[in-house]
């Protein structure tokens, strides 16, 4: 850290590292200097002049957003002159700004509105006609209302520097300046909405939220995005039990403000008209709506019957359900139904990684490592498309810390633009590509290695051996697909593993094996769609499906139970880096129940309630803390932030079954079965196809 220097602001003696910007040094000490164009983490602009302050011995006022503090500096931020400057700047910004706050989405949380309220003039001396430009729609997500734009260029920098997309620019000059999308009249970009949320005013608005509500009419519920495994916190705005927006402006969570299109807008699957709202039972070949009690009774009876006869069960869990639900489900399967035939669609080889790292601690990469470590090696994955947040972290690391980025992939990826070295390899040849980087990597001081399902089984061991041979500290991340794919493994939704990576001894049937078994008597699918691309061999098997939608799998079911989405339940999930975070219920769908409750109710039907214990997330979590190694983290800690679970420090000792590990490689606009029910994702995809 740079040397500390002493200076004063408003007579207060303060200290900050030399070179720190005055605006930051002030903020650190609780002194606010208003700003529009300045935005932490992005390049400096000094465009708006809102941050003018007086500095002794400098004849003119200075822009606090580009002025570094130095020893002995005497700064004043609240003098009459400064206030007058703020007032004038605001009057200037308002010359061409429409006074349409009452209908503007930003009204109530607009930085310009707030500043004018505090410092502005009640009247404008500008009486000429304002320049009007019609509102434009650039994509299903992004709308631009030029007259409201104060030309702070935050959006341009967020897209260029933050996203690495560079889809926005400024055209023309002076009062005629406009923000322009990359394709002239429309956008072709990640549709992440960063530009919209970072806009201090209502110039950029989103298709999802515009004209829906006023900010103060919503409740704000912080929960975890249910799409990819990066585990971004998304704060859902809920009005009348309906989610109307997602953002993370309070920068809570591992992701700060970042969200991709899925975390910010693809909550809409949860509000889809196709949500199931009543249990259904197959009668004469057709699914008919029945009451919950009838459906549960049918399942309880049938399960008991199969169990009594010693019939074969298959239980398939989800990549999206909570740790509590996963734990509860595997407990039910193993202890209640007496089967190890429980699994989920495996998406990345965490198991071998944990095994290969046995005997070490702290070697599983944390999310923050992608921002803090000096070098990052990406293997296989198109990180920007498949794991947008990890890519964003890496990009920020490159921008702020000049981190060295290496990419070994089959196709060109966005990471190439910042990569120290990019290596193109044929699929399957990734390790050879990595080997080619040996000298470069050994010259680094530390490294984060992140890999997708192109590295599994023995390749994971080879990769770890390679990493260990570099002689520098290396941490690893095995990418998985969805919000709780990691939690599914940790909680033992794995045929070979009990919770906490404990081998079961006798392995149960995997998903593929369950589907292929002719003698399967009952199949219970919780929040998964295995029949999307596969057939169920046992044509007479009794199939129970818990899902949000009538998926391919649900269509084959004998009993379908409508479940609550991730945004409609409490509990915890574990992201790809093993960090546990808390889900909070934002809304509800009539008729649906959480998977936890459903499992509990089935247990009750079968007289297994005493074995299973109460189906309260907190109670189940308490049991997880006690029994699952690594998860002994108090809930309040999970509530305030992500906590990495301490991984088991020993051999796992099972075959991770690389043949079963298949990532679906969802890109920006897809998200497995869930994505199909998201209007926003579909409209982006359709928009592109129609061009």
């Amino acid at each position, binding site marked *: 850290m740079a040397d500390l220097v002493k200076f004063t602001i408003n007579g207060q003696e303060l200290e900050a590292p030399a070179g720190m910007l005055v605006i930051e040094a002030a903020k650190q000490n609780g002194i606010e200097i208003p700003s529009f164009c300045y935005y932490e983490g992005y390049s400096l602009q000094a465009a708006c002049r809102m941050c003018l302050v007086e500095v002794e011995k400098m004849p003119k006022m200075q822009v606090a957003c580009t002025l570094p503090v130095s020893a002995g500096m005497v700064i004043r931020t609240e003098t009459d002159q400064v206030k007058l400057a703020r007032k004038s700047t605001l009057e200037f910004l308002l010359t061409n700004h429409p006074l349409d706050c009452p209908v503007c989405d930003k009204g109530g949380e607009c930085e310009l509105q707030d500043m004018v309220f505090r410092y502005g003039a009640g009247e404008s001396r500008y009486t000429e006609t304002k320049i009007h430009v019609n509102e434009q729609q650039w994509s299903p997500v992004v709308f631009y209302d030029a007259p409201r734009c104060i030309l702070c260029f935050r959006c341009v920098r967020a897209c260029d520097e933050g996203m690495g997309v560079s889809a926005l*620019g400024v055209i*023309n*000059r002076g009062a005629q300046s406009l923000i322009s999308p990359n394709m002239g009249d429309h956008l072709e970009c990640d549709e992440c909405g960063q530009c919209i949320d970072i806009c201090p005013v209502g110039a950029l608005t989103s298709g999802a939220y515009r004209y829906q509500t006023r900010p103060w009419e919503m409740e704000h519920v912080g929960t975890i995005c249910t799409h990819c495994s990066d585990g971004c916190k998304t704060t859902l705005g809920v009005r009348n039990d309906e989610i109307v927006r997602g953002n993370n402006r309070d920068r809570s969570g591992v992701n700060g403000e970042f969200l991709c299109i899925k975390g910010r807008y693809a909550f809409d699957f949860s509000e889809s008209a196709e949500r199931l709202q009543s249990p259904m039972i197959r009668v004469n070949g057709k699914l008919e709506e029945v009451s919950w009690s009838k459906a549960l009774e049918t399942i309880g009876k049938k399960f008991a019957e199969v169990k009594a006869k010693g019939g074969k069960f298959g239980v398939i869990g989800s990549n999206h359900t909570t740790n509590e639900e996963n734990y509860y489900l595997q407990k039910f399967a193993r202890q209640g139904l007496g089967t190890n035939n429980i699994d989920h669609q495996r998406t990345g080889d965490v198991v071998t990684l944990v095994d290969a790292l046995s005997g070490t601690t702290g070697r599983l990469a944390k999310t923050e490592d992608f921002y803090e470590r000096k070098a990052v090696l990406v293997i296989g994955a198109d990180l920007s498309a498949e794991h947008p947040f990890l890519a964003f972290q890496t990009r920020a690391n490159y921008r702020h810390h000049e981190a060295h980025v290496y990419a070994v992939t089959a196709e060109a990826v966005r990471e190439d633009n910042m990569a120290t070295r990019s290596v193109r390899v044929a699929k399957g040849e990734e390790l050879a590509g990595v080997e080619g980087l040996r000298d470069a990597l050994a010259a680094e001081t530390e490294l984060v290695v992140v890999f997708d399902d192109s590295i599994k089984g023995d390749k994971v061991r080879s990769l770890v051996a390679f990493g260990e041979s570099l002689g520098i500290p290396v941490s690893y991340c095995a990418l998985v697909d969805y919000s709780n794919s990691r939690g599914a493994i940790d909680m033992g939704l794995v045929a070979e593993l009990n919770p906490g990576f404990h081998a079961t001894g006798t392995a149960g049937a995997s998903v593929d094996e369950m589907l292929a078994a002719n003698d399967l008597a009952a199949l219970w699918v919780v929040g998964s769609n295995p029949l999307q691309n596969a057939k169920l061999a046992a044509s007479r098997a009794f199939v129970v499906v818990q899902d949000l939608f009538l998926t391919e799998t649900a269509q084959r079911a004998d009993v379908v139970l409508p479940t609550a989405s991730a945004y409609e339940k409490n509990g915890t999930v574990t992201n790809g880096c093993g960090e546990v975070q808390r889900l909070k219920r934002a809304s509800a769908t009539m008729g649906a129940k959480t998977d936890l409750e459903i499992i509990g109710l089935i247990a009750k039907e079968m007289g297994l309630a005493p074995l299973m214990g109460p189906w309260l997330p907190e109670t189940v979590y308490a049991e997880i803390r006690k029994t699952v190694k690594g998860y002994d983290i108090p809930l309040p800690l999970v509530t305030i932030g992500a906590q990495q679970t301490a991984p088991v420090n020993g051999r796992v000792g099972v075959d991770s079954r690389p043949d079963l590990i298949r990532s679906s490689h969802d890109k920006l606009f897809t998200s497995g079965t869930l994505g199909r029910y998201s209007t926003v994702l579909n409209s982006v995809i359709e928009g592109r196809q129609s061009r």
Partner: protein
Amino acid sequence: MTFSPELEARFEKFLAKYPADRKRSAVIPMLVYAQDETEAITQELIEEVAKRCGVTPLQVDEVVGFYSMLHKKPQGKYHVQVCTNISCLLVGGEELWNQACHKLGIGHKQTSADGRVSLEEVECMGACSWAPAVQVNYDFYHFVTPGQLDKLLDGLAAGKKPEEIADVKKVSC
């Protein structure tokens, strides 16, 4: 897009002049010289320059829109620019501007019917010490009097080259 060998050579010089990761610095000079050859800055040219300088077409477009000397529409053979900013304004710049408009019968950013002369009212061109100033293509005329402007415009309209017009001398800079 193909350019004349001379222009290609110029481009190469510009690109070599800046560090490899600062190629974007060559955007402005490339556009300035290219537009002389292509008559105006077309979308095709924008994309070509973007490609060569490693930026997006939109980033080149930002530059084109910002600088008044970059033109998306073809100019007349002689592009007459009259400064009406403060220094020139104080010593007759505005009168010169009005005179030019009257004489040519065209206005700001317009071109005469025969395509010979186009007119533009410009901001300060850094010639304040010699105000009022007029610029024709890349040549400056200092301390311009109404009489000289008349001769200049008459000459250009009659098909003369600027250097063939008596009594009005460009300054070399």
